[in-house]
């Protein structure tokens, strides 16, 4: 069994983003005199950043445990997915840069109980993905093109993961 947590430095950057966003959008509203259509857009964006901050707090409290039987995420919304019940897996890559560099990945594992999302900023992300890929092969889960390509980029050969 292995337990994985998000390092504080990774979460700190997200707190900063959330803080900057909330301040940028709330400050004009606090000063007042903002036209109502602009105020509506600003309020929506402020809520968006506030939710992002709350999600960062949730991630800080989350511990992802990977065992032989399944994957669990404890924190604000505890969830357990047995490997045998995993019905879908996707691994997406996101980057805000034009050249698509310095981005991050998100692993999504879907089971009967819900969906576990794990970001690549978590400790030892590769081993979580490797175990999940092995389970997906064992369950015969069909992976989309993006997921297969991203697995290859991490050096996880799908054929090797087949039982």
């Amino acid at each position, binding site marked *: 069994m292995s337990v994985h947590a998000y390092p504080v430095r990774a979460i700190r950057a997200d707190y900063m983003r959330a803080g900057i966003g909330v301040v940028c959008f709330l400050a004009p509203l606090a000063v007042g005199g903002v036209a109502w259509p602009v105020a509506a857009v600003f309020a929506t964006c402020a809520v968006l950043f506030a939710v*992002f901050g709350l999600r960062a707090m949730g991630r800080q409290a989350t511990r992802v445990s990977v065992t032989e039987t399944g994957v669990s995420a404890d924190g604000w919304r505890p969830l357990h997915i047995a490997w045998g019940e995993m019905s879908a897996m996707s691994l997406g890559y996101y980057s*805000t840069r034009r*050249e698509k560099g310095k981005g*991050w990945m*998100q692993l999504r594992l879907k089971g009967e109980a819900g969906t576990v999302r794990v970001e690549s900023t978590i400790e030892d992300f590769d081993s979580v993905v490797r175990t999940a890929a092995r389970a997906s092969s064992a369950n015969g889960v069909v992976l989309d093109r993006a997921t297969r390509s991203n697995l290859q980029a991490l050096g996880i050969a799908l054929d090797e993961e087949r039982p």
Partner: protein
Amino acid sequence: MFGYLVRRVLTMILTLVVVSALVFVIIQLPPGDYLTSYIDELQSQGEIVPAAKIEFLRSHYGLDRPLIEQYWIWVTGLIQGDLGYSFEFSLPVTDVVGDRLLLTMVLNFSTILFIYVVAFPIGVYSATHQYSWGDHGLTLIGFLGLATPNFLLALVLLYLANVWFGTSIGGLMAPEYLEQPWSIGKALSVLEHLWVPVVVIGTSGTAGMIRRLRANLLDELRKQYVVTGRAKGLPTGRLLLKYPLRMALNPFVADIGSLLPQVVSGSVIVSAVMSLPTTGPILLSALQSQDMYLAGSFLMFLALLTVMGIFLSDILLTALDPRIRLQGGVQR
């Protein structure tokens, strides 16, 4: 995806702040200001403007303040919905702009819709029926669309619309509705006049889009997975829609970002030729006379459209294909 959305919004804010500063500085770059041009014009007509009056006007319009202060007043005003004061028209910018921003948006969004609605089926048909009579005919029309100058097409279509449908020449509505409040008749008149500028501005964009979609789809159709799908007996339509078309859509979607500013800037010349009550002609005159708040507000509007377009295309692209490129590193 949510994290991506939030980070992209943050980048968008930063971009808009930088663009606003650039717009303001660039408008101020030519020597002098609106007042200098105005006084030169008066002096060329033989009028003498007293120095005290010049100083009073400079202080009245805030032109004697430091650049950074002028910028701050303008930006905070923009957020509060106050676009500033137009020196040329001696009116607040919001009053000068009036319905023009709305009509510009209607015109530009209709044009983009036209480009996508026309380009998509033609592009798919041309690729799936390569070298057929239909493909050759549509390709020829596409090249004609690319090669014909917009102002020429505008003049031809204006003439034809007038002769065939009795539509009044120029403008986006019949003359009797010009100073009238919005009504169903006025909206119908706008719709009646809208198709000419939409076709004129949209033609070159449509032609380019057809060529790109055709080329992308042809590339995909030649790949081995399509041959395998065909060999396994997948129905042609399903095979096309599920795999190659999805892959070929990426550049099509990516074009949204560049299409918005392209259409808006392309419509400036057409608006001047067709006397359209959009922002284009006013922007031209504001830039010529250094009417900084009026020009700045229009340029910020263009920048906002561009940034929004790129934001939209980035979100769609990421949703369509969240793949890593091997040269890019993953942050841990």
